Structure formats: C-alpha cells, structure tokens
C-alpha cells in the first residue's frame, strides 16, 4: 500500500520540500565550509616567510660603525658586529661558558658576557674570563642594502 497515494499530495509535497530544504541548506553550508578555508588560506600571512638557514638582519644604515646588535636566527641568538673599520661580522651570541647572551662593549672593543666577565675578541676568540671556547662564526653577505646572515658551510 503506497502511503503517498492514500494520503494525497500535501504530505508528499511537505516531505519533498523538507528534504529539498535540508539538501539545499546542506549544499550551501558545504560550499561555505569548503570555500571559507580556501579563501582564508589564499590570504597571505603577515610575515612573508620564515627562513632559518639565512636571515635578513636589517639594512646597512640600521647598524652603526663600532656597534653590535642581537638578531634572531631560527631559535638561536646571533650577534652582528660592525667594526670601526666598517667590517661586518656575525657570531653565535650564546656564551660558551654558561649560555648567557653576550653583547658588544664599545668601551672594551670586545664582545662581553655580563654574567662572569667573559670576553671575546672581534674574531669570536675567547680571550679573557671563564669561556672555554670561541664563538661560532656565521657568514655575513650584503645584498644591495640588506645584510644577510647565514650559517658558515
């Protein structure tokens, strides 16, 4: 016994409409749920890129002669030095004694660690105090105006 025949049109239509409504709604929601992530994906993030084997350390005019600054290189701090003779050098900024972060001391003319008065010369060699090893050196290259720091091969 076919129920739709007995009950006539109205019930059939109601069922059809309900299902069609759910179906249409479902299709629209589905399209939204697919399109929204794709559109969000296409919007470029704030930082253009994260690059860890070489890092842009700023522009030449951002670091003065006879000064140093600390740069983030992946997960490690690196100290970039511009000597009074206008040479650019970069070293690991983690002191080889007990891992404090070193700094450039203009008055000493050396790299200095505040924790136990360790000193490194401007070639990264440990020259005074407790540090047992020199600082690892990084490669500095200039691309136009930009300073690029990368790992030494």
């Amino acid at each position, binding site marked *: 016994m076919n129920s739709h025949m007995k009950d006539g049109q109205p019930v059939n239509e109601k069922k059809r409409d309900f299902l069609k409504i759910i179906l249409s709604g479902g299709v629209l929601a*589905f399209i939204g749920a697919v399109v929204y*992530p*794709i559109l*969000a*994906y*296409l*919007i470029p*993030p*704030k*930082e253009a*890129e*994260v*690059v*860890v*084997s*070489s890092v842009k350390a700023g522009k030449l005019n951002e670091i003065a002669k006879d000064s140093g600054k600390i740069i983030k290189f992946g997960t490690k701090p690196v100290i970039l030095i511009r000597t009074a003779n206008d040479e650019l050098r970069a070293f690991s900024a983690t002191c080889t004694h007990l891992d404090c972060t070193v700094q450039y001391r203009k008055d000493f003319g050396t790299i200095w660690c505040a924790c136990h008065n360790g000193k490194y010369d401007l070639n990264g060699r440990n020259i005074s105090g407790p540090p047992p090893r020199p600082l690892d050196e990084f490669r500095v290259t200039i691309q136009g105006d930009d300073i690029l720091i990368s790992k030494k091969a």
Partner: protein
Amino acid sequence: MKTLLKKIYDWVDERVEIQGLVEYMGKKYVPVHPHSIWYYFGGVSLFLFIIQVVTGILLLLYYKSGEELAFESINFIMSKVQFGWLIRSIHSWTANLFILSAMIHMFSVYFEKAYRKPREITWVTGMLMFFLLLGFGFSGYLLPWNELAFFATKVGTDIAGVVPVIGKPLLIFLRSGEEVTGATLSRFFGFHVAVLPGIFTVFLAIHLLLVQRQGMSEPLHISSKSERKTMPFFPNFILRDLTLWLLVLNLLAILAVFFPWELGKKADPFAPAPAGIKPEWYFLYMFQTLKYIPGKLWFLDGEVLGILLFGIAGLLWTVVPFWDHKSARGEQNRFVNYLGIFAVLYIIIFTIIGWLA
C-alpha cells in the same frame, strides 16, 4: 534558477551540439548486484585525485623548492598560513588513501576479471596510472626535505640503481647527480607537479572515456544469469558516489585534525641515518622482500634478483588481459584467482612484517 540553467544549456548547445552527448550519457546504466559495491572505488580514487590536485595547487602557492627553503616553507604553511595545516595534512593523508583506494580498485577489477575483452586498454592505462601513482608518492615524499624523506630517497634510488644495464644511468637521472642533493629535490619537484600530472592526466582521460564508452563491466557469473538489475548512472550512481565522497572528505578532515602529518627534522646530508629507516607502507612489502633475499644467488646479486622478480611480476600483472584467455571466453579462471589471492596475502603479510620490524 532552472530556466537560467536551461538558457545557458541552450546557448552552449547551439554552438557545440552537446545534446547528443547528454542523451547518450543519460542512457548510461550501472549494473546492480551483490558485487556492485566495488564499483565505487574507482570513483573514490578519482575524488582523491581531485583533492590532490586542488590541495597540491594550494600548496604550490606557498611551497618553496630548494634545499634552503623547502623545509622552512612547509613549516611556514603548517604554522603561519591560515588553514595551511589543514591543506597540507589533507594532501599527505590523501596521498596514502589514494594509493590504498587505487589498490582496492585494482584488485577488485582483477578478481572480477573486468580487464577481459573489450576492456584491455582500460586495464593497462589503469596499471600505468598505478605505477605513476607510486612515482607521485615517491617524489612528493622528498619535497619537505626532512630527515626521513632524505634517507628514504637515498635508499629508494639506490635500489633503482641496482637494475641491470640501465641501473646506473637511471640512478643519475633520478638523482640529478651521483648523490641525493638539492638538485634531486628540484628534479623531484618538477616530476611531481608537472611531468607526472601531465602523463597521468592523459592516461586518466583515456581510462574515463573508455569507461563511459563501454559502460561498467559485469562479473562473469552474474552475466550468465538472465535477470539484470540496473540503475541510471546519472543521477542515481553519481549521487550515491557523491555521498561516499562526502564521507571520505569527512574522514580526511578528522585525520588532519587528530593525526596531523609530521614534519620532523630538516635533512642533514652529513648526519647518520636514523635507526630503523623504512619506506612508506606502499613500498614496504618490496623493501621487506629484498631484505629476505640472500646476498648472492648463483651469479646474481640478491637485490638484482629481487628487483627483476618484482619487475617481471609487475609486467605479467599489467598484461594479464592478454594471457588470461579463459576469462575472455567467459570462463572461470581459478589460476588467476589463486594468483590474485597469493598477491594480496603476500602484500599484506610482508607489509605487516615490514612494519613490525
């Protein structure tokens, strides 16, 4: 809405005359019988291919090829790009599900002997696509340039180099050099996004056209009966296919959220290989087999023997429509069945052994 669609249809039809094609498509039927369920795996494979193309193109917008940047760019996609984690994990999971689905599709076709006349070309193009698929998997795996991938590629291309005569040139061709380097990465990238998709699409087009032209094959023992139930391909089968596709999509989303694809450590060619390195599961049974073959058999290297065996097996499998004459005649072929069962069991058992090792 309907009138608008009809207007567009008429506009196109006046210029391209698609009415004939549409009528033809409307007449396509799909047999309905207890084995009908296997019909869906072709569609699922196609769906997964489409997913790969879409997610692949999206990844292409942020991926940077090259030793210095590949790993970092994927890290970037996973962490900084909105929904990047989702796109990437779906792409990696789909690759595996695609191969699995293709294997199920291939074996179901095999056991149903659907490769028999007149569908020999369909089978061959399908097998060629399967081999291309493995190439997709192998080349794509290297693109993140992580530790696992680096060593897996090293081992895999080493094995390719063992093939007699052409092995060494093949190895250099694949690696773009003697060793696995950034050059290999660039080459694999080219394979993965241009060469393989191009060739694959050609075979896919032939495969789909043939399926549409010839319709679905019916199992032997059923076509011998007189009673035949069918359903229209459009809209019934399509809508059922779609339902399944939605469930597969949901599965992918769940996998991406709860089992995100790992990135691991960046490849370091100078570091030693991590312990227990093994290829992805779809290569595992071959890898494990090679381990069991003794170092030297008569005058042949064990590895060479292993590769030759698999090569010959693959070749015979690909040309089965041409040597299985019984099925072409409509007869049951027990040998083919036993061979197939052996192959399935072998693959499953050796994959498990390889996994546990």
